[in-house]
């Protein structure tokens, strides 16, 4: 049954997007209704698929589209990793859909729905695809959707959108070249099939390097991160949540799958590239954290926080390199971190959106007194910050624990140091936000706190729901980690 649902997961939202596009622009309510129903149906489908993956013997559900087996046909395969990502996408997707349905300018106007549903379909596709070129096409679809959504933002959002488009496309071109090289050597586009047919050599190393740089550009890894702090804040509230929580992960997943499939065969060169990714990740953790401490605008702080967390995710590559127990811990830790970060970041951006809508701007000086008028939104910010920092009792702590265990097991102390320093920096900028938001009483004589504009309670409650999900899910962390750990890709060098 879940095998049938896999293609439905990808094509369903796409069809709904088309229906939403057909509905005339003025009838916003109808579009929202289509969006919400799709969200509900997708959630159900995801639940079934995840259930299927959990119960299936090899913890994976596999379907060849229209019966065509590779090398000609395209295979969709949902394993434990994609199950985790599906859970994340569902939760964030439903939250975003509800937020925009309740308050449509959070999504940047009626055009939001078709683009968002298309993006959602593409994301599902990226998680479950096994075929390289299919991944390229879906990544392009994600990019087009995301860039258009950014362009919906008020004010000058076209510039940042354009810049985001350029960087993303350049990244994709490099990835396409890498696919061409792999196809040249392996003759097939299916990742698991290609893994067996590639031999260590300049071609494979070039492919790995190009993919690393290309995906690094698309997911804003440290030296190539400058477009993210410009693009994400420019987008409408709900969109920046989607961007930071989900879109960044699409590129990451493709990188991880590509790496896990092809890196073992590349030997020493893959190790050097992994260390390069580690160094870039550590630099991202420190740079993002320090820059976040400097910012005076809430959305920009949250954007730099994404740069930090992407740094963490890039650390997973070197941690997986030695293989064995450390690799399994790193792989499950990485995926837990993806889910934890997704939930927490979505909560933070939605909360930032609520505050910006209430107070008219996201400058920290203007947000004084938010603690008194909007305690629940501030609570969401706080809990999300705690989860990002990886402190108990949140899911982030479980992820950080696994990554630290992998680091210590494989004796790579510099990544362990980066992980710990990142945690402290995260708490640092969360404390800066919390302090700015809780107006110091004796500074009362400055400008009296501005009366907040009315914000629908549902929109205020969604961020807290996501943040609490980040805490509650930590209870399930054991199950998720267990599921993921024993399906860790075998044969890591």
């Amino acid at each position: 049954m879940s095998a049938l649902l896999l293609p439905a997961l990808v094509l369903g939202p796409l069809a709904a997007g088309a229906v939403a596009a057909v509905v005339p622009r003025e009838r916003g309510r109808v579009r929202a209704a289509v969006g919400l129903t799709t969200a509900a149906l997708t959630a159900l489908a995801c639940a079934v698929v995840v259930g299927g993956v959990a119960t299936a013997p090899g913890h994976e559900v596999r379907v060849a589209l229209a019966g065509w087996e590779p090398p000609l046909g395209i295979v969709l395969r949902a394993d434990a990793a994609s199950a985790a990502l599906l859970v994340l996408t569902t939760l964030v997707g439903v939250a975003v859909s509800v937020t925009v349905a309740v308050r449509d300018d959070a999504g940047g106007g009626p055009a939001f729905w078709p683009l968002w549903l298309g993006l959602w379909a593409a994301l599902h596709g990226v998680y479950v695809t096994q075929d390289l070129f299919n991944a390229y096409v879906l990544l392009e679809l994600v990019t087009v959707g995301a860039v258009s959504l950014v362009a919906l933002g008020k004010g000058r959002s076209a510039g940042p959108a354009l810049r985001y488009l350029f960087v993303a496309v350049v990244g994709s071109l490099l990835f396409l070249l890498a696919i061409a090289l792999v196809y040249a050597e392996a003759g097939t586009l299916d990742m698991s099939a290609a893994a067996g047919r590639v031999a260590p050599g300049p071609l494979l190393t070039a492919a790995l390097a190009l993919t690393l740089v290309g995906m690094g550009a698309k997911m804003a890894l440290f030296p190539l991160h400058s477009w993210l702090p410009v693009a994400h804040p420019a987008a409408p509230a709900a969109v920046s949540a989607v961007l930071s929580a989900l879109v960044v992960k699409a590129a990451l997943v493709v990188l991880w799958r590509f790496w896990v499939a092809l890196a073992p065969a590349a030997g020493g060169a893959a190790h050097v590239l992994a260390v390069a990714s580690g160094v870039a990740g550590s630099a991202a953790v420190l740079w993002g954290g320090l820059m976040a401490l400097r910012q005076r605008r809430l959305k920009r702080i949250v954007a730099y926080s994404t740069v930090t967390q992407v740094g963490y995710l890039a650390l997973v590559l070197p941690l997986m390199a030695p293989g064995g127990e450390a690799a399994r811990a790193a792989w499950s830790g990485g995926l837990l971190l993806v889910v934890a970060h997704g939930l927490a970041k979505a909560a933070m951006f939605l909360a930032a959106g609520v505050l910006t809508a209430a107070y008219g701007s996201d400058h920290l000086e203007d947000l004084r007194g938010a603690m008194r008028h909007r305690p629940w939104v501030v609570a969401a910010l706080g809990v999300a910050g705690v989860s990002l920092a990886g402190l108990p009792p949140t899911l982030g702590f479980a992820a950080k624990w696994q990554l630290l265990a992998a680091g210590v097991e494989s004796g790579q102390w510099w990544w362990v140091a980066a992980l710990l320093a990142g945690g402290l920096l995260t708490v640092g900028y969360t404390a800066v936000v919390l302090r700015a938001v809780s107006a110091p009483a004796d500074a009362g004589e400055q400008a009296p706190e501005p009366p907040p504009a009315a914000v629908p309670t549902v929109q205020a409650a969604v961020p807290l729901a996501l943040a609490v999900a980040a805490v509650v899910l930590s209870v399930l962390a054991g199950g998720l980690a267990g599921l993921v750990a024993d399906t860790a890709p075998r044969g890591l060098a």
Partner: protein
Amino acid sequence: MTLWVLALGLPLAVALLLMVATLVSGPRAGALRDTVCRAAWLATLPAATLTLTGGDEVVRLDWLLLGVSAHLDEVARPLLALTVVLYAVALAFVPRSGARRGPVLSGFLLVCFAASVGVVAAADVVTFYLAFTVMSFTGYALVLHDRTAGARRAARIYMVMTVLGESAVLAAMALVTADGGLVLADAPAAVAASERRDLIVALLLVGFGVKAGTAPLHVWLPLAHSAAPTPASAVLSGVMVKAGLVGWLRFLPLGQDASPGWGTTFVLLALLGGFLAVVAGLLQDNPKVILAYSTISQMGFLAVLVGVALAEPGLAHACVLAAVVYAVHHGVTKASLFLGVQVWSSERVPRWTTTTVLAVAGLSLAGAPFTSGYVAKYGAKEAVGDATFPAAGGAALADVLPWFGLGSTLLLARCAVVLWRRERKGEHSAPVRDGVWAASAVVAVVPVAWLAQRLDPPQAVPGWLSPGTLWAQSWPVLLGVALALAAARLARRRELDDSPLAHPRGDVVPPGDVVAVEERAALAVGRALRRAAARLGSVTGRVRTALAATPSPLPALSAVQARLGLWEASGAVLLFLAAAGLLLALTGGSSP
């Protein structure tokens, strides 16, 4: 067992009742306070029955503190009797004696009584230390009772010295217990056997020396006695000072292997304290201060006995018992003298009766024949036996002791003169307690003689009529009286009228003589501590500000970010990375 709980519990319960009554304001509470205060001395009765009927087995109360145990041995029983009698009489003297806030004074006296019983009867280190500390700190409250400026200064000095003494005692107790001396019976053996022996004896000397008023540590005594209300100073001099002696008798390695070094130190300090106290006492004009100096000199006498016991293990047992008899004698006599000062100045008792009673007490203190002093001093002289004092050219201690008698006779003459000149405003009359006071002073010789008789084998009992002993005991007294008369006629000559020496008003040598020096030293130490703490604070403060002032890298970072953020720059970085990757592929690709 219940007798012990009653003996300690009843005084504490009555004290608590008095405290609560003072806290609650209102007429009914006032009446309750006065009646309880008047009947307060009854609280000492259980302890009295305990002394008479109590068996000498060790009594244990395991649930109290860390396991409390008490034991009435040959040292404890007489001192316990002394404590009971003195506290009963003192408590009787508190109501209608013009002392302000009587009930509070009675309350503290009762707590002090319970603590004194504890000190004397303790059988293990923890109980002893518990009782000793409670007694010291309630002593502070007694000294402070009148809350005058003088009382506050005396109390402050008392507190500082007590805290120093306390910490020395605590250290000694810990060291003794660590070496296996938890039960007092085997403490001296443990101390003798321990390798830190000298340190322990030194700590004992200092710790209990503060309480027993040995030479340099005696400064608080004259101030405290003059500041405290008279019943309190009677108890202070009579019993609390003896706690120092009990400490020495319990812990010092008396009768173990000889330690001549420490023996001579004790005797030297004792003699120094004994004779200098007489000189300082003569220059005072407050009777209570003179009596305080007399206490210091008499405690010197006891310290000599302890010194001899330390130096000559053979004589140890005799000296200990002699010290106990002497302590009982001194306690009763000194307390009656102190209370006599109160009777003289504020009781409506005929002049001649008070003078005779005071005269008898004075003579007894000086050791005249047919008095308790005669018995105690004789016993002490015999106990010292042929012990010599090597430092002073081998002079036999036995012939040094009588000079103490001379000293106290002079002091008492001085006190009599000063008291005689003081006018009497007899506004209170409590015939019963005055009667008891007079009886206890005059009849003191009987119990002391009986006690000496019971401890006969080691304790020498003087033949009442043998001419030799009579003369040996009385020549110091006669010489003292003669000297006093000569000094008195000399002082009446006109040209000496205003000389401070002839008519001292206590300004040449202020009470507590060297205290001014020690006070300044203590203040200097306090200031140094505060300065050190302040400097420590500022140093850590400076370190912190230096750390905070380090230029944070953030501005530089954001400048780099601004430049890196430009389109061209990030594009260049992208190209550079792609090129580096390809270069790696071409060169390192083949390496395994």
